[in-house]
């Protein structure tokens, strides 16, 4: 992992984690389950197939978490497809423009109820 493109992407991700106070370093505790972690690399593309961004994400290996012990409930914050289809239809009728934004580090925002240990 010496390619400067990916090193830059990893530094950006690390800075985001620190800025969002996503974690703090603690000594390993007896009897607490610890979730593993790894880096994920992805080349994001534009609609025309050109490279938009090199993205490195530091992720938790959430598959080892057990419902009822490590977390209470899973959830996917996605809109229904007919809500999305309604937007262009309504905008065309009303003569509105449609804008888009994305959150760079959505899942570093928000407070998790449970304590989670990552290694």
């Amino acid at each position, binding site marked *: 992992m010496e390619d400067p493109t990916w090193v830059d992407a990893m530094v950006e991700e690390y800075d985001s984690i620190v800025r969002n106070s996503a974690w703090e370093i603690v000594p390993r505790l007896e009897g607490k389950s610890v979730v593993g972690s790894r880096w994920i690399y992805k080349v994001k593309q534009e609609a025309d197939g050109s490279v938009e961004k090199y993205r490195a994400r*530091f992720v938790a290996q959430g598959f080892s978490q057990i419902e009822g012990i490590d977390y209470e409930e899973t959830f996917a914050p996605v809109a229904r497809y007919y809500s999305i289809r309604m937007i262009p239809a309504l905008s065309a009728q009303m003569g509105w423009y449609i804008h888009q934004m994305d959150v760079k580090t959505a899942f570093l925002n928000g407070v998790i109820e449970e304590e989670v240990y990552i290694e």
Partner: protein
Amino acid sequence: MYWLKQAPRAWYTRTDSYFIGLGFSKSEADPNLYQIVVEGKLLIIVLYVDDLILTGDELLILSCKDDLAKEFEMKDLGLLHYFLGLEIWQCNGGLFVSQGKYAQEILEKFNMHGCKPVDTPLPKGWRKEDATLGEEVDATIY
């Protein structure tokens, strides 16, 4: 932290309280659809994990984008041009939609991107009895 089981809910709770705090009302049919009326003007927001789609009164959209950028670390993508396989061109109050890239990706996935288009995608003289002679395929990929 990405890929933690709690991360999506924590994010939703954060954005939901932000929008509700600003006075938005949430659709009963879709908890990711918000709307607000300010001085008779409408603003609609659709939330799709970390993507936000905004439409309605242009000035309301612009000021909402400013507010969002102050609250979250965000990237303004300007006018919507590609979302979930849907390509959108917006000009002069009109709108053109297409799924060209999505169709190309499906053709590539099934190694058919070099194929010629035909009106009826069946071989000449084909009878449905011929289908029983074919190999079994994994239907789940479709």
